[in-house]
């Protein structure tokens, strides 16, 4: 690999690592405000990563995607999330289903699992960004784990958004992004999905007086 490619590889892997770390921060912190902040920073680094890949990979569509990502996930969605958080009250993840220390170790193991699973992908790819592919898949797994192991509906929404970030990162690292029209459609879908979830969280708050999903246990067999 020439110097340009080596620098590209290092920068892309570095940004992928930082994105993953912000995802793991979701398992460490306890307050909903911290989750929103972590998601914001993660989306910011993700849009920088997209711009980087667009610059080094000579694909100018990625700049547009980076800007849309920035507007959507750094400003619009966190704004809605903070509004949601003030309306439903400052609840903290005091007793998640899996405690913090174990969650962190599980996150480490999930990343190692991602490395194992994506070996064929890294072997097949010839792009300089292939080093970050396991990190993106690891982020997907971490997002899934956040959804499973946390009790507050808002945390689950943030976990879902982190999952979507992981998939966007995977698309960027694997293939320098998918065609523009498709990407925009995906963003629209994510935004709408988020808005619907938001609506339902308000309804949860109104009917249950709390957003603890442990309370959603009436529908048994």
């Amino acid at each position, binding site marked *: 690999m020439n110097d340009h490619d080596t620098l590209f590889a290092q920068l892309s*892997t570095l940004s992928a*690592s930082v994105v993953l770390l912000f995802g793991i921060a979701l398992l*460490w912190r306890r307050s909903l405000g911290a989750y929103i902040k972590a998601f914001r920073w993660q989306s910011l680094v993700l849009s920088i990563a997209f711009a980087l890949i667009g610059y080094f990979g000579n694909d100018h569509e990625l700049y547009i995607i980076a800007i849309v990502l920035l507007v959507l996930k750094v400003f619009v969605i966190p704004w809605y999330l903070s509004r949601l958080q003030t309306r439903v009250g400052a609840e903290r993840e005091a007793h998640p289903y899996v405690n913090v220390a174990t969650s*962190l*170790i599980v996150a*480490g193991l999930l990343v190692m699992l991602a490395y194992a699973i994506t070996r064929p992908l890294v072997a097949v790819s010839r792009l300089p960004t292939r*080093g970050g592919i396991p*990190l993106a898949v690891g982020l997907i797994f971490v997002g899934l784990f956040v959804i499973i192991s946390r009790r507050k509906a808002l945390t689950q929404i943030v976990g879902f958004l982190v999952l979507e970030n992981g998939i966007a990162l995977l698309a960027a690292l694997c293939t320098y992004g998918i065609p523009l029209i498709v990407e925009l459609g995906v963003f629209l879908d994510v935004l709408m999905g988020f808005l619907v979830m938001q609506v339902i969280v308000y309804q949860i708050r109104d009917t249950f007086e709390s957003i603890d999903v442990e309370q959603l246990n009436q529908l048994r067999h």
Partner: protein
Amino acid sequence: MTGYLLEIGQALLALLLAPGLTGFIRWFKARLQGRRGAPPWQPYYDLRKLFGKEVIVSKNASWLFRFAPYVIFATTVAVTMLVPLIAAPLPFDAVGDLLAVVYLLLLGTFFLALAGLDPGTAFGGMGASREMTVAAIAEPTIALAIFGLAVGAGSTNLGRIVAQTLANPGAVINPGHLLGFAALFIVMLAETGRMPVDNPSTHLELTMIHEAMILEYSGRYLALIEWAAALKLLVFFSLLSNLFMPWGVATTLTPVALCVAAVALVAKLAALAVTVAVLETRLAKLRLFRVPELLGVSFVLALLSVTSSFLLR
């Protein structure tokens, strides 16, 4: 021959600088908090005072109580001879690599905890159990964090790792490198008893870890233990600076290179000392049950560092 002389010189330099380092951190913290603070060379006066004082040993203490300070001091001095402080390929490298360093540090911690338990006081037992909780997660993390670098260098020999990083400076922004640095930094705070894990200047029951174990010591024993703690801090700082940013470390044993290396070392130590002082002023101490969470984060960072170095070879 010069190599061995250099080793001894390195150990003496470390012994000389260590109390000054602790004093500098304390002084800088005081300045940040708006106080005048004791001058940075106050710990030297403290050590001299302690060496002159009488030793009082509890009736319930055994031989271990008297033996432990020497072991702790000896192991920490041994570590200074294995860590690349000012020169990279050293003669003792053949005997001591990463694992030896970790084991020696752990040996010191082990004896310190035993010494805390030995007199049978409540504070000592409490401090020992807290210290073991922290050490249990921190020690493997040290090994993992440096192992991430070792994978890149192809050897756990610390000198070889430094040489490798000097050879390709572009590797500094490798994710493995940076993650390892972050992990080792957090572990350094834990192992040397700094905020937010432990307050080095407190004697309140709720908050002491290190201080609780050495509460019974006096006179020259206390002097040895305090010196060893300062040395440990210096060792960790130099590991952090020389493994991850090794510029300035002498690779040839000429006097010029050695002087440059010594100056570079002092500069890096000062930079890290300032960072730690600022952190200590800004952060509040974590509640004890939150410490494993912080150490869990550092463990995950170290794990990620190893996996990413391993797979990006």
